[in-house]
């Protein structure tokens, strides 16, 4: 219960912090739209010269773009800002405040910063997704929607665990403030169906930087391409990575409290 209360409190703080900046709304909408335009325009250029990319048609790729933006928003709402804040707090020494609170430090650190504007991307992504699915003539039944929901959850959990592991590395390496950029750069690859990439890169995008599970797999659930092995792999990997990231976190924390001044 405290967990939920804390999540809600941090969310409220995120809203309060931004609500006073009215200009921000217009700017944030602009930024979200720019992201959308970039993705869709790229799509448009590519599909002038072909009608299939990696086996996916234009509306399917559009749906993928929708999921890409949606998941980007989900990650950007709390995972990304919190992890960035965490890395900085290690450097600034303000992590010590979190560590002297009677709340699980991993929880505090993971929800401490909320960027409410990213919800715009969630909405935008859902919009694009809706339009694309409409044009595909896909009737998204309950089963598909549920599968999508579960894959989205699994994908988000995988991304969270990945970010946490990356961010925890700052306990060992102080000078990697841009380590999270790794994910953001590689995430760009998620805009396109993972089938276009050569095998070795596909492997990397699945198991090393889990972009495929974050974007392509949920999109597959909606476009009827999802198969059971993939779905089970997603859930399995999510569970595994959550455990691994927890272990890495605890090891990192032990190191931090053994070796800092």
């Amino acid at each position, binding site marked *: 219960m405290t967990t939920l209360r804390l999540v809600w409190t941090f969310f409220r703080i995120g809203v309060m912090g*931004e609500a006073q900046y009215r200009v921000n709304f217009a700017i944030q909408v602009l930024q979200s739209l720019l992201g959308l335009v970039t993705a869709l325009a790229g799509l448009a250029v590519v599909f002038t010269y072909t009608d299939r990319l990696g086996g996916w048609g234009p509306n399917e790729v559009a749906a993928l773009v929708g999921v890409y933006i949606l998941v980007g928003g989900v990650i950007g709402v709390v995972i990304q800002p919190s992890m960035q804040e965490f890395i900085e707090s290690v450097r600034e020494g303000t992590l*010590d405040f979190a560590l*002297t609170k009677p709340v699980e430090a991993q929880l505090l650190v993971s929800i401490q910063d909320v960027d409410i504007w990213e919800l715009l991307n969630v909405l935008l992504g859902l919009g694009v997704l809706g339009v694309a699915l409409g044009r595909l003539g896909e009737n998204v039944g309950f089963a598909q929607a549920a599968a999508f929901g579960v894959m989205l959850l699994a994908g988000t959990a995988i991304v969270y665990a990945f970010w946490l592991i990356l961010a925890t590395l700052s306990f060992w390496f102080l000078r990697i403030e841009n380590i999270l950029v790794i994910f953001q750069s590689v995430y760009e690859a998620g805009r396109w169906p993972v089938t276009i990439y050569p095998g070795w890169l596909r492997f990397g995008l699945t198991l090393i930087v889990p972009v495929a599970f974050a974007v392509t797999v949920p999109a597959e659930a909606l476009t009827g391409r999802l198969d059971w092995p993939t779905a089970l792999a997603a859930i399995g990997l999510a569970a595994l990575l959550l455990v691994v990231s927890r272990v890495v976190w605890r090891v990192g924390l032990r190191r931090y409290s053994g070796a800092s001044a």
Partner: protein
Amino acid sequence: MTPPAIHTQDLTKIYTVSEREAGMRAAVQSLVRRRTEEVRAVDGISFDLAPGEVVGFLGPNGAGKTTTLKMLSGLLHPSAGALSVLGHTPWKREKDFLRRITLVMGQRNQLVWDIPAADSFELNRAIYRLPAGDFKRTVDELTELLDLGPLLKKPVRNLSLGERMKCEIAAALLHRPQVVFLDEPTIGLDVTMQRRIRAFFAGYNQRFGATILLTSHYMNDVEALCRRVIVIHEGRLLFDGDLASLVQRFTSHKTVVVQLEICPDNLDAYGEVVSCEDGLATLRVPKAETPRVTARLLADLPVIDLTVEDPPIEEVIERVFANSFPEAEKP
């Protein structure tokens, strides 16, 4: 006999640091080979604090004060030695332990930047699970004691440094901790604010009986607030007692201030002349010689007024540290 609130025995903390010299060559070399060195940040410190004591940790930068404080608050694992705070082992970071302590760090904020302090307080309320009634009462008390009034409604980024610090302190005390760790709390603040904050903690200790442990390199913090002083230098405990004894033990000189009509030429025959202006002379005299010098001054010169003082505490502390390096002593 009540058990101590804080107990340490031979507390030690050792770090391995990588060493590197300046220059291009060394930079490239360090890519291949790393030289490490062992640093004893804290070297066998032992002390006990009774509940409700206010203690100052004094020492130059890098002496080991903050490291000690971090071990006591559970942030660092000691390399050796025993320690317990309120009966808990700090580094185990048990929830019950964390609920009863608090940490305030100078120039480091836990308040959320963009929102009013009052809203950050709500966050702490959620974290410490404070019941509404108690919470309101505590906030009102702290608002009164710290004179927070209108500050709570303003976004933290709009507050001055001193105002921010007051709000930080309030936020840290919302859960009525039994042990308060203060790490350089007045650093960077102007003199008036420093005084206000010291006065606040003195009052807080009197009213609520919290044990307060303060680290500082400002003598004034310790002087104003702490009856007991622990001097730490190079990781070792140099002195543990009250301030008066500290001055007593480590001063070898006294300051003699004489008011005369004009400054005579032969003043240096009586002792080291620190200054002389408009007849007001300040002399530095070895402690043992003070009675004799004073007598001579009164006999030889037309003295209007004469006082014998202890040297400023800063000098005392410098002397305490300089004890480790006799060659660094001033002539």
